[in-house]
C-alpha cells in the first residue's frame, strides 16, 4: 500500500482528542446515582450529538456510527481500516450462517460497519451463492456452512470462521506499510491465540483440536502454545512467561476479562507515542482504538448502573485512558 499523507486527518483528530473522556470523566460517570444521570453527563460531554437519544443503547449506537462516519470522512482510502472492520464481516458471516440454518431473521444482529455489506453477506449465504462474496469470505462461508449442516456443531462452525478471520487479519499485516497497523494485527492474533489456548486448556480439548484452532503469528510459537494448552493451564502460563507477553500472566491468572483489559491497555500504551506523529496514520488509529475503548467503557458503566452492579467491580475493568 502506498505511503499516504494524513496531515488533514491528523489535524482533525487533534481536535477530536480533546473530547475523549479522561480519568476524571470516568470518575464522574461512576459516581452518578443512576444510568439517566450518566447519560446526562455524557450528553454534556458531547455524546449523542443533537439527536434525542435517551436510552443507553441508542446513545452507544449513535456514537459507534458517528465514529465510523467520521473516520471514513477524514481519510480518502477507507480500506486502511479493513484490519479492524474485517472482524465485523466474519461476525456477520456467523450470524448469517446461524440464521439461515435455523430459519430466523437476523434483525439487528448484523453489524453495519463492515468491509462487505452485511445484507450482501446474508443474501449470498441464504441463497448459497458464495461466489458473490469477496474471496476472503467465500471459501470460509462454504466450508463453515457445510460443516454446520453435516455436523450440527455450532462451536466447530464458529471456530472455523474465527480461525479464518484471524488468518485474514494476519494476512492483512503484510499488506499495510504502517508499523502500528502491523503491530495491531499481530497483537489481535496473538491475544486471540492466548485466549483460545486458555479456553481449550480449561475445557480439556485435544491437541489436534487446539492446533486447528490456533492461528500462526510472529510473536508466539503456535506449536509450543498448542502443546502447553493440551498439557494444562499451568503449562500455558509457563510458556507465556518466556514470551513478550509475560506481563499478561497476572491478568490471565485473575480472569479472562482482566486479560482482555490487559490487551487493550497494552495496545493503548503502544499507541500513545503516536499522538505526536503529525503526518502518519498512527494518530488516526490511536484515536479510533481509544474511542472504541471509550465506547466499551461507557457501555460497561451504563450496564452496571442499569443492573445495580458495584462501582468497584467496573472500576477494575476500566481501560487506561488514551488522553
Amino acid at each position: 500500500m502506498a505511503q499516504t499523507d494524513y496531515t488533514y486527518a491528523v489535524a482533525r483528530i487533534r481536535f477530536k482528542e480533546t473530547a475523549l473522556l479522561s480519568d476524571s470523566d470516568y470518575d464522574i460517570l461512576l459516581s452518578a446515582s443512576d444510568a439517566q444521570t450518566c447519560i446526562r453527563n455524557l450528553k454534556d460531554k458531547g455524546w449523542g450529538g443533537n439527536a434525542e437519544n435517551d436510552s443507553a443503547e441508542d446513545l452507544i449506537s449513535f456514537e459507534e456510527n458517528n465514529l465510523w462516519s467520521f473516520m471514513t470522512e477524514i481519510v480518502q482510502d477507507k480500506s486502511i481500516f479493513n484490519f479492524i472492520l474485517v472482524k465485523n464481516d466474519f461476525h456477520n458471516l456467523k450470524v448469517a450462517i446461524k440464521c439461515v440454518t435455523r430459519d430466523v431473521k437476523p434483525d439487528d444482529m448484523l453489524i453495519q460497519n463492515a468491509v462487505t455489506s452485511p445484507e450482501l453477506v446474508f443474501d449470498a449465504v441464504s441463497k448459497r451463492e458464495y461466489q458473490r462474496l469477496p474471496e476472503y469470505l467465500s471459501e470460509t462461508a462454504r466450508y463453515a456452512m457445510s460443516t454446520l449442516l453435516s455436523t450440527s456443531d455450532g462451536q466447530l462452525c464458529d471456530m472455523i470462521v474465527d480461525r479464518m478471520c484471524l488468518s485474514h487479519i494476519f494476512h492483512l499485516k503484510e499488506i499495510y506499510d504502517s508499523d502500528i497497523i502491523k503491530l495491531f494485527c499481530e497483537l489481535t492474533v496473538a491475544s486471540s491465540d492466548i485466549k483460545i489456548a486458555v479456553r481449550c486448556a480449561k475445557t480439556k480439548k485435544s491437541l489436534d483440536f487446539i492446533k486447528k484452532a490456533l492461528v500462526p503469528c510472529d510473536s508466539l510459537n503456535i506449536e509450543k502454545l498448542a502443546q502447553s494448552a493440551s498439557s494444562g493451564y499451568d503449562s500455558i502460563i509457563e510458556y507465556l512467561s518466556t514470551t513478550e507477553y509475560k506481563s499478561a500472566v497476572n491478568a490471565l491468572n485473575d480472569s479472562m476479562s482482566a486479560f482482555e483489559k490487559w490487551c487493550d491497555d497494552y495496545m493503548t500504551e503502544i499507541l500513545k507515542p503516536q499522538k505526536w506523529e503529525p503526518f502518519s496514520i498512527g494518530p488516526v488509529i490511536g484515536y479510533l482504538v481509544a474511542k472504541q475503548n471509550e465506547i466499551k467503557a461507557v457501555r460497561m458503566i451504563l450496564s452496571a448502573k442499569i443492573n445495580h452492579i458495584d462501582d468497584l467491580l467496573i472500576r477494575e475493568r476500566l481501560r487506561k485512558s488514551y488522553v
Partner: protein
Amino acid sequence: MSDFLANNGGVFFALLGAAFATFFAGIGSAIGVGKAGIAAAGVLSEDPSKFGKVLIFQLLPATQGIYGLLVAFLIMSNIGIIGDPVEITGLQGLLYFAASLPIAFSGLFSAIHQGNCSVAAIGTVAKKEDQMGKALILPAMVETYAILALLISILAIFGINAM
C-alpha cells in the same frame, strides 16, 4: 553558443541566479504553506473559531519565497534588467549566480521543514489553544536559517557591486 556566452554570459548567469532564488525558495514556500494549509483546514473543519491562529502558522513558511523574490529583485536591478542598463562581465554574472545560491537552497529546505513544523504546531493549538505562543516559537526557529541565508545573499550582492 560560445559567442553568445562571451557577449551575454554575465547577464545570463546573473539572471539564472535570480531565477534560482525565486524558483527554489518559492517551491519550498509553496510546499510548506500547502502542508500547513492542509492541517489548518483540518482544524477549521472542527473549530472555525481558530482561523486567525492557524492562519499565522500557515503563513510562516511563506517568507522564504519572499526572501527569494527580494534577492531576485536586487540581482535584476544590479544587472540592469530593472532600471538603468548596466554592463556586467561574465565573472560578475557568475558571482551574482553564486550569491543567489544561499537563499535558493536554504529557502527551499527551510520552508519545507518549517511547513512540517507548522503542521505539528497547528496540532498543538488544536488541542491546547493557550499554548499558542510556545507553539509559534518552534516553527519560527527554522526561520533563523532562512534569514541567515538571506543575509549572506544580500551581503554578497552588495559586495559584488562594490568590486
